[in-house]
């Protein structure tokens, strides 16, 4: 299994690299800044990749077109009744084809940390390194085709606090997710739709490690988003993200949100959402606010 994961990671990264090198002749021409339509670079997920807030999409980060290089940076706060999740990171988009992303997450257990025996304000953390390749389709311009924009991706997660992860039943402090995303703007209906399959072992996005005492297998998790464009700058929508349930000590549930993504300026966007992350580490009903600020070029 481990060999297979390494092979798959190498295959995805190889494709990304080959595309990057394949883009070289085209780079002989002058690079051009910007040119992507508003909101069509997506917003930043908590994992750094372009998408909704929770779901990774097939869109490539940044304002660039096939003729340029763009990028984005984000700062996100998810404020829950008993926990806080903070994420900062960024992504670079190459020729609207390849996306490389990074995010650092801090998950503060606040008072719940003491109740869980970890100590007050015990904080989990992780780094997420992502690579995404747009394989086929154009979510925005191919309005005469049913074919969505399809991207494949890989996300390598490296969690901190390996001893605590092991103590709660987590098998690994590192894990690699594989993603296939399909995103389509249905302009005639003013809709933005996404469906993503994520093959993952992650516990709570990877903050509690990968695999567990209940299951150490890869699970196919689903991420779906649906949004309505109400203006060129404002997208209202909802998301769902299923997750594996690997740890015996605490049940893990799906995450859902209702969001508003507002690109109030060419280079700035804010996403506000009501998010329900379900039960986290035995602490139930973690519903709260998701607030993210993004800058893009």
């Amino acid at each position, binding site marked *: 299994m481990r060999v297979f994961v390494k092979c798959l990671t190498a295959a995805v990264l190889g494709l990304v690299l080959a595309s990057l090198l394949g883009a070289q002749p085209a780079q002989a021409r002058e690079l*051009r800044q910007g040119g992507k339509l508003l909101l069509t670079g997506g917003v930043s997920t908590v994992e750094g990749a372009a998408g909704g807030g929770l779901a990774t999409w097939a869109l490539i980060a940044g304002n660039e*077109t096939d003729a340029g290089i763009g990028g984005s940076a984000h700062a996100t706060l998810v404020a829950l009744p008993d926990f806080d999740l903070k994420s900062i990171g960024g992504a670079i988009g190459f020729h609207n084809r390849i996306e490389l992303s990074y995010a650092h997450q801090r998950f503060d257990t606040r008072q719940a940390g003491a109740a869980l025996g970890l100590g007050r304000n015990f904080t989990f953390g992780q780094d997420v390194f992502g690579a995404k390749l747009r394989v086929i389709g154009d979510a925005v311009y191919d309005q*005469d085709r049913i074919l969505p924009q399809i991207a494949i991706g890989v996300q390598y997660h490296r969690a901190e606090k390996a001893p605590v992860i092991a103590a709660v039943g987590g098998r690994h402090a590192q894990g690699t997710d594989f993603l296939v995303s399909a995103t389509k703007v249905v302009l005639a209906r003013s809709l933005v739709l996404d469906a993503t399959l994520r093959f993952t072992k992650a516990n709570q996005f990877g903050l509690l490690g990968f695999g567990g005492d209940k299951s150490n297998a890869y699970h196919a998790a689903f991420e779906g988003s649906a949004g309505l*464009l109400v*203006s*060129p700058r404002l997208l209202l929508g909802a998301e769902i993200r299923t997750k594996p349930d690997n740890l015996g000590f605490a049940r893990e549930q799906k995450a859902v949100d209702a969001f508003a993504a507002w690109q109030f300026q060419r280079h700035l966007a804010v996403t506000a959402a009501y998010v329900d992350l379900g039960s986290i580490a035995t602490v139930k009903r973690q519903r709260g606010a998701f607030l993210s600020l993004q800058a893009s070029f």
Partner: protein
Amino acid sequence: MLLLALALALQTTPPGEDAVDPYLQSNANAGATPFTGTAMLAAFHGRAGIDRIADDLVTRIVADPRIADIFKGQDEVRLRRLLKEQFCYILNGGCAYSGRTMREGHRNLGLQTADVGALIEDLQAAMRTERVAFHAQNRFLAKLAPMKRAVVER
């Protein structure tokens, strides 16, 4: 064949426009099938609204620093007329389109995706000025968007 040659030879240049090499005229050159019914035409405030939007669009694109250079030395009178015809045809306003295909009409302009993006934003601004409902704007843009594949050369 003789009839075709005759038809091509009879094409006259409208006043104020530069002469162009003869070509086969067809509504299929408009690059999109028209809407059915009258809802979209009404949403664009009829032929008069379409003409205002096309005129406003041309005024915007020739002044848009991102794409203005493309229109230097181009026949602006002809561009205005053909945009009005094309929009009117697609919005089922009862017009015929007399221009060349999207690919032929944009040949050698060296257009990039970002140029199309700029034009779309200018068109959105023109439709907004005409107070076309946002949902109707998007339905229209859905007809135009695939033309990007025909007009982008690099």
